[in-house]
């Protein structure tokens, strides 16, 4: 069953035609990855889903409801959380405050407390730094905080934009492990990555984006074996 269904999506930045007729389906319970080179339009896709960008044409349907024209704060309440590229943590907040604002749209105090415990168990390093200013965290810790914060929204669909960006290989392993755990606990994930190798190993299904168009999509293990993907994205000659 499709949790998110995107059809014929066009997005412009002024004269730049950033997305050209994108079609993409995210099945409930899966990890779907969107891979592609820098500038392909991956972040634009996520920004359009979460309402930061308005499409010029096309449809986005989440769990039977159209997302087109809805402001971001309403889309969050429908159950979509977006951990943006570059982490986007609130540097003027403490780690604890960053987590709390992740649950801004929720009112179930007990549920929030339980989820907070859950993410602090997933990311023990955040627990040690709760009262610290978020600006003092390392890059890896900031990424953990960004994911933890998005999980606190208790989303049905989690949008992750390049969670491995700029992180040491070991930290990347940890992050992807946690992404699998979050998915195993029932959250559907749309994962945007330039690290195609990690992304395809983690995801169930994959889409390849090239300058605003989907050029290929298939189950992740098939994509990983395809010659084109191996050549263009996995660095295999």
């Amino acid at each position, binding site marked *: 069953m499709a949790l998110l269904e995107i059809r014929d999506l066009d997005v412009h930045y002024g004269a730049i035609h950033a997305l050209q007729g994108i079609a993409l389906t995210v099945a409930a319970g899966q990890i779907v990855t969107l891979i592609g080179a820098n500038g392909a339009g991956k972040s634009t896709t996520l920004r359009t889903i*979460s*309402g*930061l960008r308005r499409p010029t044409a096309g449809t986005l349907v989440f769990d039977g409801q159209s997302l087109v024209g809805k*402001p*971001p*704060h309403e889309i*969050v*309440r429908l159950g979509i*959380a*977006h951990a*943006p590229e*570059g982490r*986007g943590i*609130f*540097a*003027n*907040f403490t780690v604890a*405050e960053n987590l*709390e*604002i*992740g649950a*801004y*749209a929720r009112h179930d105090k007990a549920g929030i407390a339980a989820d907070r415990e859950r993410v602090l168990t997933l990311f023990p390093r955040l627990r040690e730094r709760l009262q610290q200013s978020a*600006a003092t965290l390392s890059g890896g810790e*900031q990424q953990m905080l960004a994911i933890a*914060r998005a999980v606190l*929204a208790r989303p049905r669909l989690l949008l992750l934009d390049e969670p491995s960006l700029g992180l040491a290989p070991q930290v990347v392993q940890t992050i992807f492990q946690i992404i699998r755990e979050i998915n195993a606990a029932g959250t559907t994930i749309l994962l945007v990555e330039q690290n195609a190798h990690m992304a395809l190993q983690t995801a169930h299904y994959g889409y390849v984006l090239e300058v605003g168009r989907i050029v290929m999509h298939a189950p992740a293990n098939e994509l990983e074996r395809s010659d084109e993907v191996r050549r263009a994205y996995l660095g295999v000659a």
Partner: protein
Amino acid sequence: MGSVFPGLRCAPPGAAIWRPLRGLGRGLGALAVCPSYVPVTKLVQTLLDGLAVGGLYALIALGYTMVYGILKFINFAHSDIFVLGAWISWVFAVRVLGVPDSAGATAPGWTGPLVFLVAMTACGTAGFLIERFAYKPLRNAPRLNVLITAIGVSLLLQNTGQLRVFFGPYPKSMPLLVPDVTLGYLAGVRVPLVDVIVLGTVVVLMLGLEGLIFRTKLGRGMRAVSFNTSLAALMGVNVSAVISFTFVLGSALAAAAGFLFVMKYPAGLKQPADTSWMMLGLKAFVAAVVGGIGNVRGAMLGGMLIGLLEFFGVAYFEPLYRDVYVFSLLILVLLFRPTGLLGRATVEKV
């Protein structure tokens, strides 16, 4: 140039004789003429006035700084909301409640708080409407368009006030909504009820605002929007609502300042387009910049500093340079700490 502040209440009689002795000598000269005028009295008096007026600057500065913090835009019409608060207080008290505005007339005790609330509500509503109809349509327009619009809003507010059906084109005298009673003497300085009310209200409003911004969910939303609008939206913060609320809040605080100002200086109630208002608004803006524009605690600190500096300068140095002190501080801060006293250079860790 006529001052909007009717001067220090304990100004030494005959100080004019000592005109040749300017600067530091002035204080000593005053002492010689006015036997009761002991230094500690003067100090306390100056402190009291400086804090009260500084508090009013701070209340106005908060509106400048909150809107800047969220929209990165200087709302030049903000000081006209302060003026609106002042003249709405008069219009409501005199025209609606029928309190006589003759000198020395007093009103029943409940009128003060009622007028205060009406002024805050009226200005809060005005702030909401201005944001909704003047600024919101320009959310994605070039900065210059918004600035020009703000000047338009400012002119609209001033000239609406000049209409006879509202305030009219002449100065008025504010009826004493706070009875002119003396609460006691502090080091020889008379402490009138109105001063305690002004300072007390300023402190209560500031503590309330501090609590709102740093201890409530809405306040966290405001701080999030001020850090990064789209990031805040991704957290589920309704950015439009936060912006509206910020305008309402800032305008209500400016209204409080307008009301308190005419309580403390009933004779300072000039017509809405009078230039004396502009100087007050400008000093409040300086307070916001000195404290660090965008920083709420900075606005509070900046307002108090500007008020104290102004009154100490006037009392201990040269009264004619009243504005010079304020703007010199602005220049110094801009030269040596351009982000303001509490402002931080926003360097984001990537």
